[in-house]
């Protein structure tokens, strides 16, 4: 393998990429739309239930129920009409309202259940409605001097770093995933390039020059990795992804770019025409995208998701960009990613090499 020959083929491929309208369109769309979607997403998480309360003589117990909780904010209002108006107004941002009768304590003490009105807006989730009805009961029981039999609400045990007030927003969650989707698109771009070379047999023309099959394969690897890495890095820069752990992210993007290049070489080897390449690439991409979707949901990914080739890539990006993880924290994921990258690259090299040899 000679660097001068490889770089000549790389130059030819890059010129072809520039001349490919499809590639340029996909690239242009990615560079515009991914950052646009990112910056349009909400950057904060609203984790407080704001509840309007109309009551007289229950200040102490209402305060006792809501004090110390970041998840519940009580807004005192003078009467039911004002509460209803506030609930229907977007400015007040209330999810529900509770109207306690003036004679609540007297009625309840006399054994007659008092009527409490729970006013909700149409988009309140059922569990919130249930919880607020329970809250009304709790307020009444506290007003009657019946403390809760346990201190569940006031003293929960928090496991792990408490992120209340500092939750990861949807925008931050999507930051690593956008870089991932850009890389996935590149699988298709390289597969198209490889398939076109195979279909038009330009590869045989290249191989009658002093270039060897190894030069050709190395050039494809370099082009695919360079193009995928550059695009993903540009996207990451446009969405502020390098703010923390930039060296880890650069290594991860490089490994990810090499991974999708290997996969693209395999998909391109099987492509008979444009439609087959498109179909093969999408078939390959669907399982590879599962770790990315899985990362959007809380908790640990299922064991089978953790063995997918892209899991290490997605997980490293997520941990570094959202939790500020360091080298030691992500070493296992990086090793997994490196292993899969090596396997995909060798696979791509062997399969594409055999395909070229049959031409």
């Amino acid at each position, binding site marked *: 393998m000679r660097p001068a020959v490889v770089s000549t083929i790389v130059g030819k491929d890059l010129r072809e990429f520039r001349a490919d309208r499809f590639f340029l369109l996909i690239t242009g769309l990615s560079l515009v739309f991914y950052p646009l979607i990112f910056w349009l997403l909400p950057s904060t998480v609203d984790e407080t239930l704001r509840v309007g309360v109309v009551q007289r003589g229950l200040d102490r117990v209402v305060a006792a129920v809501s004090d110390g909780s970041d998840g519940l904010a009580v807004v005192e209002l003078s009467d039911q009409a004002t509460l209803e108006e506030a609930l229907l107004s977007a400015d007040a941002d209330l999810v529900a309202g509770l109207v306690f009768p003036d004679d609540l304590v007297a009625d309840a003490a006399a054994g007659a259940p008092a009527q409490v009105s729970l*006013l909700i807006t149409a988009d309140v989730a059922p569990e919130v409605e249930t919880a607020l009805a329970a809250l009304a009961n709790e307020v009444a029981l506290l007003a009657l001097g019946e403390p809760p039999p346990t201190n569940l609400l006031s003293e929960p045990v928090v496991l*792990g770093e408490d992120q*209340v007030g500092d939750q990861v927003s949807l925008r931050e969650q999507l930051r690593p995933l956008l870089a991932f989707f850009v890389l996935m698109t590149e699988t298709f771009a390289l597969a198209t390039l490889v398939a076109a070379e195979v279909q038009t047999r330009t590869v045989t023309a290249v191989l009658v020059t002093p270039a060897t099959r190894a030069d050709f394969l190395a050039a494809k690897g370099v082009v695919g990795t360079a193009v995928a890495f550059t695009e993903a890095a540009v996207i990451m820069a446009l969405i502020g992804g390098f703010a923390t752990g930039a060296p880890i992210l650069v290594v991860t993007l490089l490994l990810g770019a090499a991974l999708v290049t290997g996969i693209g070489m395999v998909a391109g080897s099987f492509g008979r025409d444009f439609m087959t390449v498109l179909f093969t690439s999408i078939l390959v991409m669907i399982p590879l995208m599962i770790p990315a979707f899985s990362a959007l949901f809380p908790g640990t990914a299922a064991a089978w998701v953790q063995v997918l080739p892209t899991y290490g890539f997605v997980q490293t990006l997520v941990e570094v960009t959202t939790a500020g993880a360091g080298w030691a924290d992500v070493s296992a994921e990086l090793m997994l990613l490196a292993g899969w990258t090596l396997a995909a690259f060798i696979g791509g090299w062997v399969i594409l090499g055999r395909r070229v040899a049959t031409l």
Partner: protein
Amino acid sequence: MNVRQAGHVLAKDLRLGPRSPVFLWVLALPLVFTFLISAVFGDLFAPPARLAVVDEGASSITTALQGVEGIEVTLLDDPAAMAAAVEAHDYDAGLYLPAGTDEALASGRQGELELLVSGQSLASTRVVIGVTTLEGVRAAANARPPVEVQVTTLGEQNWTPVEDRLLPFIVMYAVVIAGLFLPASSMVEERERRTLDAVLITPVKMSEVLVGKAALGVVLAVLMGWVTLALNDAFGSQPLAMTLFLLLGGVMMAEVGLVVGSWAKDSNTLFTTVKGGALLVVAPVLFTLFPSLPQWVAQLFPTYYFLQPIYDMAVTGTVFTDHVRDLAVCIAICLALVPAVSAMGRRLEQRLAATV
């Protein structure tokens, strides 16, 4: 134009079509999207509160919690495993109920219950789980509810779950892939393989080829639209009216597909064009998904006139007579596209003749 000849083209495409990857897309992708949207994206936009419970004594608290809509209760065996899972945010909270909890509470003793919450759980979720659990604890302690809570819902009952708001997206995908992409890719593929030249030296005319290919797209668009609506339980009380709008949507998309397919010089150009023009097709879906956007803008896009009636009839309960204007616009668009299809067909015929 001979309808019988167009039928031959349709029969050929039906016979050979399944060999094409596009055909597989038409059949598989709406099903995949239905699954993804109902199983994945619904939970993504409105995640349920997740509570793990280790119950060593068949407590009534567990039974009460399991009956609460919107709280997903998972029973675990090991308190240590539960704590680890809560810390990893596999659950928002964990509750350990040792044997004899109900008896202890009923006898008035202070229960030693611990609610473990994940550091990553939302504060509001903690409140919901905490208060709901406390109500179960109160009930186990035989505390009589001192109030009756009367629930009143304010404002228009027009809130629609995200899964329902995504229905036009799935229907659009089913109709567009089948109606637009199938005839378009079929035209391009026939040209690339030069089988169109072979067809045109038989008595079959270009107009018959176009009608045959459009018919396949329309049939599959309606079929996949039906399947999609059935899978999403969205037929409601207006199945015939929905079928009519699916049919018109299929015709509209097939006409656009024929125009694009006759114009594009190869698959690459076709795909680029479809991707570039996707915004025009998808735009009305965005307005359904985000109701706060100015809805009149959606009416500027042709696909609105078959997607919106289907959505309204399926989700908001409108009837056919509410959509007569949409129907008229839909028919007008379909008729307006006929000369364009005809012109592109003639142009293609001339180009083919010039290259023979």
